């Protein structure tokens, strides 16, 4: 009888210890269960309070894709290091984020990460939307942390572009074409070039070679009949110009910086290229803002 009690006590101790250990490690075995009807979709679009540019113009023969103005994104499974990414035209300084009507939760807070406090003005609106106003052209890639009313966090990276890159080659190692070029198809609003048909904005390019060496050069303005290419869209108040840089298989990547003209001791600043500039990888053709 006593022996039976002892075995029972031992078993109880063993069981208690096991439960304790498992409970310590419980987070490993617990998976969040999403409600059947729960969605985490958000819409992002330019604010209608200022001009909305609809970019459609391309140079004849070009087939690159122009990013959309409006997005509907499911931000589930995003993290700070792996956010959902979108590209918005840089002249859309104010964007609106709104949760989808199917979302059970609303937006509680939005924070701009890794930038100074005043970089983006974030305002909660009455209709449960938030406006994000970028206060400088410098901020061309910002990650936002969105917290919903269930305290769930979602991450969205907004890349702000003016240039879309294209090439005249498929593979940099192909024998043809002999002269290989990377094009920066650059969209600017009318007022960038005041009273002039000539493209006066400048593109400085850092060419980084595979051996780690580098050089700076100015990108060439693509011309038509000897005049700098400029395709206007009068309805949308923007124009397209094109810059090009010659590359070969020794070039690893390019960094583009596009600036307005300098006026003696004053400058009209830079339009795009925070840090070292917008990076274009020659082999993968990937753009990093």
């Amino acid at each position: 009888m006593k022996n039976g009690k002892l075995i029972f006590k031992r078993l109880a101790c063993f069981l208690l210890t096991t439960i304790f250990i498992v409970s310590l490690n419980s987070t490993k075995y617990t998976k969040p269960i999403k409600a059947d009807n729960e969605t985490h979709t958000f819409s992002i679009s330019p604010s209608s309070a200022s001009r909305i540019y609809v970019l459609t113009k391309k140079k004849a023969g070009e087939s690159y894709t122009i990013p959309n103005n409006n997005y509907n994104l499911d931000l589930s499974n995003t993290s700070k290091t792996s956010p959902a990414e979108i590209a918005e035209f840089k002249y859309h300084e104010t964007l609106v984020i709104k949760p989808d009507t199917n979302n059970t939760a609303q937006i509680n807070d939005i924070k701009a990460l890794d930038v100074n406090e005043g970089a983006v003005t974030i305002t909660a609106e009455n209709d449960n939307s938030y406006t994000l106003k970028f206060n400088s052209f410098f901020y061309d890639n910002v990650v936002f942390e969105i917290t919903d009313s269930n305290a769930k966090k979602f991450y969205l990276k907004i890349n702000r572009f003016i240039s879309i890159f294209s090439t005249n080659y498929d593979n940099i190692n192909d024998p043809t074409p002999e002269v290989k070029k990377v094009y920066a198809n650059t969209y600017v609003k009318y007022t960038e070039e005041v009273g002039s048909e000539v493209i006066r904005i400048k593109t400085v390019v850092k060419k980084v070679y595979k051996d780690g060496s580098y050089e700076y050069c100015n990108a060439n303005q693509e011309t038509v009949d000897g005049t700098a290419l400029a395709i206007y869209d009068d309805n949308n108040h923007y124009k397209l110009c094109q810059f090009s840089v010659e590359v070969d298989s020794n070039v690893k990547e390019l960094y583009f910086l596009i600036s307005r003209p300098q006026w003696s001791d004053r400058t009209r600043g830079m339009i795009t290229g925070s840090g070292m500039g917008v990076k274009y990888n020659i082999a993968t053709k990937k753009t990093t803002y």
Partner: protein
Amino acid sequence: MKKRKILLLLALVILLTLSKYKTIKAGNILTTTATTSDERNIHISGTTDPSIYAVILGIYSMDLEFFILTHNPNVTEEEIQQYIQSHPNLQLYTLMDIRSIEVTNGTFDTTIDLGPNQNIDIKNYKSLLYVYASDYDGGNKLETIVQYINNTPTNQVTESEKSTEETANTTNEPTTTIEGSNESEVITEIESTRKADLAGDADNIDNNIDNNNVNTSDSSRPFIYSLLLVMSITLIFNLRKNKDLL
């Protein structure tokens, strides 16, 4: 009536011009300094108006005589062109680096590594490194020459090196164009550089601490399990002992 029309037209023209030349946000850079103690790491710092979000920093190397010429207000454009034509094989200036950085609380501070093999002799001013800082969103632009600071401990500098440096500084240093480089400024700059270095070290230490914490928490788990096992065995033995006593 005509006057009114003219005035209205003028007002319209002014309004249009103003709106077209308007930049997003522009502020002023108040000060900028650039120093180096070697020939590739350029430490640039400065202060700005609170309205500035970011600055563009450009580093150029320039022929010393050409720099003096272009920065002399009495020199005409013709004289500059003559100089260029008379030095056809001279690399007058080269862009070494250009990038933009964020401004925090009206200050900016960074160190740019120009990389190896740049063939710049800042110490002896054979070529000149100068930095320009301008507002990212269209404000003013300030230029400064990169000042060489000898950080080598004095007891390691030989007399011959000292005399070479002194000769170089007295004979080659332009007095009219280079910004003031009195002792106190140099000391301040050395201090700020060291502060930045220390801050960098502190960041590294913090990161290490964070990493260590992660590692500790991971490695502590088997220890906790072992401890619990020992505790449960002890408990069982104690119970058995108590039973024997009973």
